């Protein structure tokens, strides 16, 4: 069930109405209903994989309780590793089995040894990378005694499978989300309206920006050998906006939906394309994943506390693992390594925490230095997205080589130029709106400051109209495949 589907448009109000009616009963019933709704939401993709979530939930719930009772360090470690192995075992099997098998066979063949292996026709359970990391954070936090384990299985299961963010994040920490399941939720008008507003903006980003850009990005990437350098560059730009619109749009809809139910999820995107350096970009892009790797991988590895070589190693590890998290393909690994290469010079020069504040905080426009910094960071990001989007490394290389030719200065070719130009104009519209709203949590949060209700509603209506008129060919959310 996609957020931008008629099914969800029916599902959401029904669940919303019943959920708030159940407030009169008690919290447990409300959580139980949320759990059923979440399982139904997930089963609408493939009911068979519900068993995976339920199994993972039971294991982590059990491990959490056992960790509380256990004092011995060795036993506690065994329990922690049980949870890690079960969760990563599922993830490894469903997501990486064929990748490792193929690469082992290739490696042996390279050294003259023929080995045989049977590739499996494995379907990747939607959202497995997201809920696996969410449950892992619970077990690790309980192990580190940062969090009391849950004694309420229903609330815990509802936390693991909470439908707004189940299939594509944000990856919530148990320390933030789980306690909210134990507090009585009270309906608040302002919070619900804010949720609706964020959902509207998310739908705009997904349906108008991402789906329209996808049409051209797919066309150009799938036939890249046919196009001129200028068209290839535009194709990369289209993909840059597609992935942002798609993923941040999903996050906005997820956060907005959660607010309708009285939950507060963490911000997942903070206007990353206005970043002045790559370090800032990674503090603003997929924040829930970056901070997960920082807290559960980078810091345990020693972070930046060791010598320079150890720090560089740690940075490389988290970027490469982060790349690999996105999928079983060398392109993702190289994409991660490329970002590490962008990041390491900043780290060595101790410039990685320079740009913490919102850009041009006190002014309407950036100054020349900021503009150059934003443009350079953006171009580096576009280059990395080419590797991310390419079918394989050879394709990425040929795509980038195709851009770096004389034809870069030719007029781009498109089957429907007017539509392509209007799609680009919509991207400019997105940039302008997000620039104006960059101090908020999402692009149009500040609309609420407009005092005249009619004007406010007119702006919402224009967005609704744009969503209807400019809807692109419906595409699955990119991050579902991760």
């Amino acid at each position, binding site marked *: 069930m996609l957020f931008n589907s008629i099914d969800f448009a029916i599902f959401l109000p029904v669940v919303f109405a019943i959920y708030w009616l159940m407030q009169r009963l008690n919290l447990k019933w409300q959580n139980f209903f949320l759990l059923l709704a979440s399982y139904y939401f997930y089963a609408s993709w493939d009911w068979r994989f519900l068993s995976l979530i339920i199994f993972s939930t039971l294991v982590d719930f059990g491990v959490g309780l056992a960790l509380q009772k256990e004092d011995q360090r060795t036993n506690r470690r065994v329990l922690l590793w049980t949870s890690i192995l079960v969760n990563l075992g599922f993830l490894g099997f469903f997501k990486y089995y064929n990748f490792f098998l193929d690469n082992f066979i290739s490696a042996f063949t390279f050294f003259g040894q023929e080995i045989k292996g049977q590739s499996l026709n494995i379907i990747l359970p939607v959202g497995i990378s997201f809920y696996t990391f969410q449950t892992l954070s619970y077990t690790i936090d309980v192990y580190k005694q940062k969090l009391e384990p849950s004694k309420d299985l229903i609330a815990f299961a509802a936390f693991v499978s909470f439908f707004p963010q189940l299939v594509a994040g944000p990856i919530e920490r148990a320390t933030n989300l789980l306690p909210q399941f134990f507090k009585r939720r009270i309906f608040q*008008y302002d919070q619900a309206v804010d949720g609706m507003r964020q959902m509207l903006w998310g739908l705009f980003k997904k349906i108008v920006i991402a789906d329209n850009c996808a049409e051209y990005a797919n066309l150009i990437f799938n036939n890249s050998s*046919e196009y001129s350098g200028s068209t290839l560059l535009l194709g990369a730009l289209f993909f840059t906006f597609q992935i942002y619109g798609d993923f941040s749009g999903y996050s906005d809809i997820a956060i907005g939906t959660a607010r309708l139910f009285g939950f507060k999820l963490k911000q997942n995107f903070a206007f990353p394309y206005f970043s002045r350096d790559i370090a800032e970009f990674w503090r603003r892009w997929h924040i829930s994943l970056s901070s997960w790797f920082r807290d559960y991988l980078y810091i345990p590895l020693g972070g930046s506390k060791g010598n320079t070589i150890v720090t560089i190693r740690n940075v490389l590890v988290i970027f490469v693992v982060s790349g690999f998290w996105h999928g079983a393909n060398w392109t993702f690994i190289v994409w991660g390594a490329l970002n590490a290469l962008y990041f390491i010079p900043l780290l060595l020069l101790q410039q990685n925490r320079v740009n913490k504040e919102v850009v041009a905080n006190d002014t309407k426009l950036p100054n020349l230095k900021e503009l150059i910094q934003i443009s350079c960071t953006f171009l580096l990001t576009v280059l990395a997205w080419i590797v991310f989007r390419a079918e394989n490394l050879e394709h990425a290389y040929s795509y980038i080589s195709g851009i770096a030719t004389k034809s870069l200065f030719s007029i781009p070719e498109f089957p429907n130029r007017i*539509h392509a130009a209007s799609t680009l104009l919509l991207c400019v519209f997105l940039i302008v709106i997000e620039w104006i709203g960059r101090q908020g949590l999402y692009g149009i949060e500040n609309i609420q400051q407009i005092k005249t209700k009619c004007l406010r509603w007119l702006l*919402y209506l224009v967005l609704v109209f744009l969503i209807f*008129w400019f809807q692109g*060919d419906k595409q699955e959310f990119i991050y579902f495949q991760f």
Partner: protein
Amino acid sequence: MRKFVLHTLLFGFLAMVFVELTCAVLLYTDVYLFNYPGYVIHDAIKKSKTKSNKKILLLGDSVGHQLFPNKDDNDSIYSLACNQAISLAGQYVLLHNYINTGAKFEKLVLFITPFSFRNNLDQMYTYHYFLKPFDNDENRYLFTNSVKEQIAKIPYHRWHSMPHIAATTWAPDYISKDTSTFTFLSPISIEYLHKIRELSKLYNFSIKIVSPPISISKREAIDSIYQNEIRNANLENEFANYFNLIAYRDSALFSDGTHFNTPEQIRVRF
């Protein structure tokens, strides 16, 4: 809560009215066409209602449209080629429109790839490319029962003329679950080829069915077509030499296995 529900309902109502009205304006002024993937079909319909004195009328699919765009002017060929998704039923409507202008032509060329004859109005593009442009009071009397039955299977088929659907790219996710019993000619294609034959006798023009050049990579798929379907459908005359005359070209010339990278470099004669 009550305030929120009331405001949401009010906003929803206003949004519906606002979107319907603005889309109606877009439809009325044809502004919607710049963002409309089916504009090629719209152009073909418009052109089919204009008389000409060209000797050859050409109907075709998207490859046909690549090689003979319906926007271009040609000395002897009047092209209404647009897209396979309109099916032979849509092609028939175009032909019917053109005949109704009083135009006299000597030859009708159906410039269509073999795979396009499989269209039985059961594709994901049917809603967008057939229902929206063709399913209206002006054309409905030309639809056979098979067409009506196929249309009835498509979700939201009655809603396609509502402004917010007609003016936008929205279409339901529809993929037919019917198992096809044919490899080449769908029942709708057979019916309408017969109807085209009737018109040819009535208005005295010849019919030639020709395939655009095809990628060599498709040869195996074409060889596996069960050509007895032509005989069973009593269409041997129309398809005489159709398969024998297919020109197979290097697959490097095609962008997606079907469409040409640079159609302007391809030459075809009838």
